[in-house]
């Protein structure tokens, strides 16, 4: 029996009075692309951020390849991991953000090579060689010396993907990776993601790109009001008869080129 890449167990998250995640249970299988979809405020980004321990679940636990992430339960008590333990578990994960979050004072090459130097302890030369290989992979070797402010949004996001990949994660998390991009630039980012998926990378993608979810996703998880309403293969999820809430959600995408799903 293969262990899931990520196990989400009874996770709830509360921001003050608001319950953003309600008792989520989910197993993310290895080597597959799982897409989290749902309306704004449904909690999908929060769930993804919990998977990187950027948010701490109020209740429940998350395991990455069988190892506790951030908190663990011992003798019925919740305990925090030490920063070093957290970093160790988190090293399996690469994270890509909606706003790219590149460091503006470093070139593309600097962004990608930084952790190789500071975390992995590689020499500048070795780190930059590996970083360059990642930039080649996302098609940006010619932009290596450019600062983020000199790159388009799509290029910035590809640098951000290269930065995450440089540390050889086994799981890649994408938080609305194309939402800050205009449609023309969306394609180049989705292409890079598609290549990654073809290589068998375990991916969790929060997205509004229903087309991407349908064509690249192996699993589609639909969240609404903090609840995981269902998750299944895209064929099953998008096939009629659909869940009424999903039906309503998909209707809002009709004008955005999702007719192909009908």
């Amino acid at each position: 029996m293969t262990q899931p890449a990520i196990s989400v167990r009874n996770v709830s998250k509360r921001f003050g009075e608001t319950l953003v995640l309600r008792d989520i249970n989910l197993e993310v299988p290895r080597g597959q692309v799982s897409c989290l979809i749902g309306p704004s405020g449904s909690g999908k980004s929060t769930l993804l951020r919990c998977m990187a321990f950027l948010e701490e679940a109020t209740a429940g636990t998350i395991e990455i390849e069988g190892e506790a992430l951030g908190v663990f339960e011992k003798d019925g008590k919740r305990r925090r991991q030490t920063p070093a333990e957290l970093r160790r578990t988190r090293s399996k994960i690469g994270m890509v953000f909606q706003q790219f979050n590149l460091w503006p004072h470093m070139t593309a090459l600097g962004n990608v090579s930084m952790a190789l130097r500071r975390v992995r302890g590689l020499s500048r030369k070795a780190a930059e060689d590996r970083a360059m290989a990642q930039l080649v992979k996302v098609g940006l070797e010619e932009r290596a010396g450019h600062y983020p402010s000199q790159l388009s949004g799509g290029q910035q996001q590809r640098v951000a993907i290269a930065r995450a990949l440089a540390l050889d994660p086994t799981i890649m998390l994408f938080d609305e990776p194309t939402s800050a991009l205009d449609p023309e630039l969306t394609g180049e980012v989705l292409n890079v993601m598609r290549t990654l998926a073809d290589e068998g990378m375990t991916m969790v993608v929060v997205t509004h790109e229903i087309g991407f979810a349908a064509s690249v996703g192996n699993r589609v998880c639909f969240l609404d009001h903090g609840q995981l309403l269902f998750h299944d293969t895209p064929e099953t999820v998008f096939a009629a008869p659909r869940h009424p809430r999903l039906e309503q959600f998909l209707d809002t995408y009709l004008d955005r080129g999702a007719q192909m799903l009908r």
Partner: protein
Amino acid sequence: MSFDFAVILAKGPAILAGLGVTVLIWIAGTLLGAVLGFLVATARRYGGRLADLVLSVPVEVLRGTPFLVQIFLLYFGGPYIGLRLDPVAAGLLGLTLYGAAYYAEIFRAGFQSVPPGHSEAAQCVGLTRFQTILHVQLPEMALLVLPPSMNMAVILLKETALLSLITVPEMTMTVQAIGSQQYAFVEALVVLALVYWALVEFANLLGRLAERRLSAYSA
């Protein structure tokens, strides 16, 4: 009545010695104050609510009272609590603490200016909190904190004149003494003002150069 600068300038070596003391105390106090202020800002941000609350008290007191009162308290009040400092030490300590309170606020604003996502990205690639501050937050806030930091440095330079009142042998005390020996008070004050102004302009020039260097990436 006519101005006679010659009698002041004849004391050139003594003035230079005073200038040396002023510059040393200024640079040491500014650097120490900036470092201490940065540590305070970091502790207030990442040390939990209690550290934030506790540290806010000295910051507010130091920003809310006159520098002159602070150095008088240090120098004349210190012995009451067993703190006996010579004038230079008291002056340097006073300047450092006063500067630190302001630098703490400058760096607090600096931390706030760095988008949280940039730190999150650093954590996700495995940087420690310390590495994130050193390699991401500090360089990112540099351009923003540089102008107020230079401004503060200039203010601190001018505040060093008050150290003459606790008998620190810095430039103001030296030049005033020369002025009264030579009966040339106004000339002494004019020379004093010009030297301070020249120093301030020099500091501003350095600041502008640093700013230009740092802004290279923000195309």
